[in-house]
């Protein structure tokens, strides 16, 4: 049978891939900021915890993490459905890399500014939210853009824990039609298109952040 008959199936897979990727990026950004800020501001104990998190999720392969959380964790009594597992593991992995981006950007804020904030009697939280983060976020954007694309690409691995994403659909269609060349070419093009879309999205957000809209000033200032 002609492979074009299976295009709706491929489209459904693409929707799943996009959903998982966006969810993983959203949760991953939260992880990145929580652990990145902990690394810089956390004091000895919290920053060590954050360091361990970063090293573990960056140092062990995502492939291993995915299988570990999918197959091994249920044996100790913790289990989620595959989609939640996939999103959480992708997010934790992206968060590991993202926390380094956050840490780097936060530590690149100049010391004079922090001293000035201190002189103006800003609390640590105020300094973080009003001085450090608004500037650091702009610095982070290009790196986060790359991370988003990386997450999209790595999301193909969730097909191995039985989630019917784009790669999984492609595999199924290939098994039915045996027309590998067409199926995989179309699939690669789909991923390419999604990467480009993601890049455009990141650019738009970057422009928004660069204008300073992410941290609106108080009305009186």
């Amino acid at each position, binding site marked *: 049978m002609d492979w074009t008959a299976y295009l709706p199936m491929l489209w459904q897979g693409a929707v799943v891939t996009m959903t998982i990727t966006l969810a993983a990026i959203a949760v991953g950004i939260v992880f990145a900021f929580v652990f990145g800020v902990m690394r810089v501001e956390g004091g000895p104990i919290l920053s060590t915890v954050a360091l361990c998190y970063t090293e573990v999720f960056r*140092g*062990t392969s995502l*492939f*291993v993490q995915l*299988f*570990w959380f999918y*197959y091994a964790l249920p044996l100790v009594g913790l289990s989620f459905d595959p989609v939640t597992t996939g999103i959480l593991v992708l997010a934790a992995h992206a968060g590991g890399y993202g926390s380094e981006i956050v840490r780097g950007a936060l530590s690149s804020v100049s010391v004079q500014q922090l001293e000035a904030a201190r002189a103006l009697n800003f609390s640590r939280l105020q300094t973080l939210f009003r001085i450090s983060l608004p500037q650091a976020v702009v610095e982070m954007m290009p790196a986060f853009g790359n991370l988003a694309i990386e997450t999209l690409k790595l999301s193909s691995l969730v097909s191995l824990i039985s989630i019917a994403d784009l790669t999984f659909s492609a595999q199924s269609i290939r098994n039915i039609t045996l027309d590998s*060349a067409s199926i995989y070419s179309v699939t690669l093009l789909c991923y390419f298109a999604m990467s480009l879309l993601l890049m455009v999205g990141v650019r738009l957000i970057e422009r928004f952040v660069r204008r300073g809209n992410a941290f609106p000033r108080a009305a009186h200032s």
Partner: protein
Amino acid sequence: MMYGYEWDTTTWLTYATSILPIILIGLTVTLKAAAAGFAIALVLGLVFALLRRSRIKAVSWATAFVVEFLRDTPLLVQLFFLYYVLPEFGIVLPAFLTGALALGLQYAAYTSEVYRGGIEAIPRGQWEAATALNLTRRQTYLDIVLPQAVPRIVPAMGNYLVAMIKETPVLSVVTVLEMMGLANMISERTFEYLVPLTMVGLIFLLLTLICSALLHRLQMALPKAGIPMR
């Protein structure tokens, strides 16, 4: 290859020690795949970088597109493509080589950017000076550009090597029995996933930490002023 093996699953410790030899065999396959893939990536990346700098617009644009395409699509799907489509064109490679080729292709896209960055970091004035001194293109590259570019390139390449090692488990989906493939196979026989998967994770963590430390030392040892090429 594992028929006749008995895993002692009485405690996690005996289980771990009984599967360790097999896992270590897998580790050698992992490292070989990464080495082969990285060699391909280094050579192909340089080819991409030089084609990208070609004076013929069509060549440089086409290369830019190929690099972007390779960078923006998943390794797993590229691997499936090579594994299933190459044989249709009469190119039948062993799974290991297909895997190494997929790794090499994906990372060639990354390394070509590193080469490009390294070459473009050389100020224009130096190219002009080389022209003024009547150096040939070959001499310019060997005596001016590469000695300065290499110390900039090495650390980034090292990071990609570490990243590639962590991506080798993907090869297990096309029947390459590297560390992760073996761990999965053992787990499927014993229905005990926790120990093998944790072991593989820890070995990867150890590998990354060691590689990063070595890389840091290498970076410190590199002469900042440049390495003479001849």
